[in-house]
């Protein structure tokens, strides 16, 4: 599969104190495609994902070696401004965590932080991205009510809108549908399939079927090691490694 690399992980090692969470990861993430990181629980998937926007920085006793290049720039370079990197990425967490403010303010928070004060501009941004996350019809009359009153599915779509509002290039999803009911999950998945035309999407998932539905590219992690990676078709139909075969078949999970 021919692709342009958006994120390039080179010799990435991550330690929590003496425990090594990621062992020498080398992989390239393709641009404007959906990449799924799969593997059993606790094998480093979330650590890898969160290293892309350096959210792992706040963990006590964390040590990182290696490089992660985004658009050619190493994000772990100490001279780099972390907030700029994070602006390029939008994160969708497992459980939606709306900010303690109204629906409108949730979406407007990001743009406001980055300097946009003009009310008209903010209105346009909020409207546009709520529509992009297919949430508009349900909230258009109550934009200024607290976000905490929404249902879980609605909150997750709000978080999507919030993340898109800072106009990132990359969307990161940490098991984005695992807390949702089937209908809401379906809506999020549909959004992702639409959004990949404009954004690079990387999702962590432990639902193999979801990976099969969505992924163009697959990365398989086991106990912090990169076992295999490649185009989705190859991985699911012709896995090369023994462990990959076993995981796909559902033997290890």
């Amino acid at each position, binding site marked *: 599969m021919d692709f342009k690399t958006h994120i390039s992980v080179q010799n990435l090692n991550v330690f929590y104190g003496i425990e090594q969470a990621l062992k020498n990861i080398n992989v390239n993430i393709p641009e404007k495609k959906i990449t799924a990181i799969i593997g059993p629980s606790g094998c480093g998937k979330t650590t890898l994902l969160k290293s892309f*926007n350096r*959210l792992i920085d*706040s963990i*006590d006793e964390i040590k990182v070696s290696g490089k992660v290049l985004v658009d050619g720039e190493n994000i772990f370079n100490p001279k780099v401004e972390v*907030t*700029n990197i*994070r*602006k390029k*990425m*939008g*994160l969708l*967490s497992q*459980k939606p*965590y709306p*900010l*303690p*403010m109204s629906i409108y303010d949730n979406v407007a*928070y*990001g743009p406001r*932080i*980055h300097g946009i004060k003009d009310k008209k501009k903010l209105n346009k941004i909020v409207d546009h991205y709520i529509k992009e996350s297919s949430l508009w019809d349900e909230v258009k009359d109550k934009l200024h009510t607290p976000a905490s009153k929404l249902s879980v599915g609605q909150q997750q779509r709000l*978080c999507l809108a*919030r*993340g898109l509002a*800072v106009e990132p290039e990359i969307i990161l999803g940490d098991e984005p549908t695992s807390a949702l009911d089937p209908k809401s999950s379906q809506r999020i998945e549909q959004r992702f399939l639409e959004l990949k035309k404009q954004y690079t999407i990387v999702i962590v998932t432990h639902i193999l079927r979801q990976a099969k539905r969505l992924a163009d590219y697959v990365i398989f992690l086991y106990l912090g090691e990169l076992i295999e990676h490649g185009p989705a078709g190859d991985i699911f139909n012709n896995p090369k490694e023994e462990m990959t075969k076993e995981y796909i078949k559902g033997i290890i999970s």
Partner: protein
Amino acid sequence: MLLLTIFSGLIVFLMAFGLYQRSRPILATKPLNELLFFSSWHPLRGEFGFFPFIMGSLWVTGVAVAIAIPLSLLTAIYLSEYAHRTIREWTKPLIDLLAGIPSVVYGVWAVLVIVPLIKDNIAPLFNRFSTGYSVLAGGVVLAIMIFPIIIHVSLEVFRSVPYEVREASLALGATKWQTVKYIVMRKALPGVVAAIVLGLSRAFGETMAVLMVAGNVAKVPSSVLDPAYPLPALIANNYGEMLSVPLYDSALLLASLVLLLVVLFFNIISRIVLTRVERRIQ
């Protein structure tokens, strides 16, 4: 055992009732507004105007809270959001140690250090004369005494804000300070206010340390360099003469009752707010 438990729950009411009973004589002879708003305090003549003492308490408590709020909050924010885990673990016990120092010891220190400081250094700076025994002295020592409670409770409140919300903000590209300012403080506000109110009520009721440095002159203070005579100090200072002058004991016990009610009011409201915060952690 059941009886004991019920008894303990009722202690507060017993106290209020007991003090009220003994305050009745003076409440019967003098109208309430005279007691609260008159400035003339001459027990031998039968005049019991509490106003200077109430104002004295307010002045000293006000100064204490004004000093304590910024220092405590900044420290709590630093320890909760910025500091390395080891620093936090070592600092918390030290702050709790501050809380354990007895009030008289604070008083001794304040007499040795703060009072001369005010008399020799601070007052001349403003071209004023002060004996050093002043609202400012009381306020400073009270502020130090209430640091621990404000910090301790605020830290608990910050802990109740789930870290994922902070993560969500950081993921959007906000800096730590922006996250603290817009997200953490928003969620923590009621709890932090409750912490401050608890500190305020502690300062209001504190006796010994203020007694030793506030000056104890029964006049309404007109500046922080003037002496003041807070309510608890009044009660403590005059226990000796209490029983020899008619109505004096009743007046002082009324003052205690007022103190109790004010403090209870603040404490109950704070505790209710904090219980809600605690429930969030679960």
